[in-house]
């Protein structure tokens, strides 16, 4: 939630946690002397029916993960498309044949969000999530408590691959979402799905704590089992040298370089999992050695030509297109993610190969040799960079801004010179990671057109 949307605290604890009677652990988390100055309140909002839906979602999709084989579609797809055709106004004039269904993109949702709401969706259950648009225009995402809580079984299924499970208990902190920003909403909460376990959203920014050391001490005291956040926040946490041994760290929202991952894993002694997720449909895949392993059997993924509504065969690189999900307020059919990769199915599980966020950007050497941003990402991934921005000016000079506490601009220039075959001028700066960063996601941009 972006702070500029200024949502108001408007619920009672009974509305936040309809099924939890014992809120003592919540009060402990909030009232501890080390606790931050939480600026917000939040609950999972799950009532009995909704909780049973989350559990059913887990049982239906994650007891045995069934994806699809090459040349086939998932078994649920036909019914899903028919349901969208019958109940979702945006899709009603587009036919009910999936093969000929047109793609749609973020702008469609941004401009016509109400048309994506299924006629079956109960508006009493509507929740709105506002994105700042760090990778595009601002967007209101509509969802409900069930689709929000479905994040948990999705991530549980990822943790299973690492033989990790979240302990469900009302006296443990299950998840801490770590932020290192100038301003963000922060709160202590509980998860009904996890048996009343604690959920924290905290900001490392020292101004949010009564003493600078309290962030470290608070986390050490409540020992969250899973840390979530982006690489910048994790590196900011690392800089505090906390004595924390989480079961796993889930990194998302920004590209996690191998260098940063190694550094975090070395210190925290746990897997650091790089999850690819979108606000529009939450978790999609997580990074492995052979590519991003798809997490969710309730999503059907295709690769499309960037400019034309033409699906591409497995192995061909193009734009990732998503169908499915569990959100009745935003059912997706052929949603263009704006991210690029190829698709490969290994032992019945789809993998996204060479996933790169947003449009591929072509850079040029001084002598006009093309350099793909994927090659740059691959090279940079070995450095402990928490994030970076790279821009090529009209005069071909590369402007690079990186975020790291460990490397120097000289190392960046050396590495980029290798990629650009020593035929480029580079201006590099490295900004130290603080506990209150105001950076955007990793991004490439260029003033030069790809003239092929």
């Amino acid at each position, binding site marked *: *939630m972006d702070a500029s949307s200024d949502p108001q605290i408007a619920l009672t604890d009974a509305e936040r946690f309809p099924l939890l009677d014992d809120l003592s652990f919540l009060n402990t988390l909030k009232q501890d002397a080390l606790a931050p100055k939480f600026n917000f309140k939040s609950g999972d909002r799950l009532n009995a029916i909704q909780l049973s839906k989350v559990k059913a979602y887990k049982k239906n999709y994650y007891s045995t993960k069934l994806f699809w084989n090459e040349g086939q579609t998932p078994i649920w797809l036909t019914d899903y498309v028919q349901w969208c055709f019958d109940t979702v106004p945006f899709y009603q004039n587009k036919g009910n044949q999936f093969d000929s269904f047109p793609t749609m993109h973020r702008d469609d949702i941004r401009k016509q*969000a109400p048309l994506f709401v299924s006629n079956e969706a109960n508006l009493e259950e*509507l929740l709105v*999530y506002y994105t700042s648009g760090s990778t595009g225009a601002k967007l209101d995402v509509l969802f409900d*408590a069930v689709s929000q809580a479905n994040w948990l079984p999705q991530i549980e299924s990822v943790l299973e691959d690492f033989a990790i499970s979240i302990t469900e208990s009302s006296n443990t902190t299950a998840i801490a979402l770590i932020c290192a920003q100038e301003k963000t909403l922060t709160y202590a909460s509980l998860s009904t799905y996890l048996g009343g376990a604690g*959920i924290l959203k905290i900001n490392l920014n020292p101004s949010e704590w009564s003493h600078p050391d309290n962030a470290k001490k608070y986390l050490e005291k409540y020992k969250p089992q899973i840390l979530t956040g982006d690489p910048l926040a994790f590196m900011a946490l690392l800089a505090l040298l906390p004595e924390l041994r989480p079961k796993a760290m889930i990194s998302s929202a920004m590209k996690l370089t191998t260098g940063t991952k190694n550094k975090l894993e070395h210190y925290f002694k746990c897997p650091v999992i790089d999850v690819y997720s979108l606000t529009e449909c939450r978790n999609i895949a997580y990074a492995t050695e052979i590519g991003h392993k798809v997490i969710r059997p309730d999503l059907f993924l295709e690769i499309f030509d960037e400019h034309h509504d033409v699906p591409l065969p497995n192995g061909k690189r193009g734009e990732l297109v998503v169908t499915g999900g569990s959100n009745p307020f935003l059912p997706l059919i052929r949603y263009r993610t704006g991210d690029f990769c190829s698709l490969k199915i290994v032992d019945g599980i789809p993998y996204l190969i060479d996933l790169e966020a947003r449009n591929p950007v072509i850079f040029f050497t001084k002598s006009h040799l093309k350099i793909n941003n994927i090659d740059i990402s691959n090279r940079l991934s070995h450095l402990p960079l928490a994030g970076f921005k790279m821009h090529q000016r009209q005069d071909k000079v590369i402007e690079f801004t990186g975020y790291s506490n460990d490397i120097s601009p000289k190392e960046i220039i050396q590495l980029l010179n290798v990629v650009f075959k020593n035929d480029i001028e580079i201006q590099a700066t490295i900004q130290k990671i603080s506990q209150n960063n105001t950076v955007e996601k990793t991004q490439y941009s260029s003033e030069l057109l790809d003239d092929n």
Partner: protein
Amino acid sequence: MSNYNVFELVTHLRKCPDIFLKPTSLMEKGGLNAIALVCDTYRIVCNDFLKKEFKIPSEYNLAYIEDNHWRTIAISTWLLSHPNFINCPFLEDKLYTFWFEALAEAALYVKFENWISDEERAEEMVRLLLYTCKILPEGESDEEAIDKLASLSSADRQKVLRESYEANERIMRIKREMAEKKAREAANTYGRE
């Protein structure tokens, strides 16, 4: 080959004398005796002028028929006076459905005089009659006849308008809820996106 020419029947219907537009005696003293009109039409269609028993609603149900519906029935009896329908006993058991079901629904949306003054409504009544009586219009296939009736149907058009209105109402409600919910706390966020 059917000899029920839609154009000819529409022309006949639109020549309906004003007397058929009067309110019924059930509604107004000195009005048309609608029951007699219906029974006479049965007799003409059956070509049996001595017959006395015809299928009509019970007195109780007759009381619920509104003026616009009665006048619509009266106009339709003029349509049924066209030579095409005289001495067609097979129509007898279909007329009840036409008068008291099909026209009952259509009369909800069409003011009685429009069945004559508006060419499209006149064609709708003709086609509704032919469809209810399972008569194919001259030169048309089943599908064509159904399509043409559907495109004219006042009930269908109202249904579309109502659905469109309801859809618009829902969109407006979603927008209101969005504005309200956006300003309030939502639900736990567990990770970054």
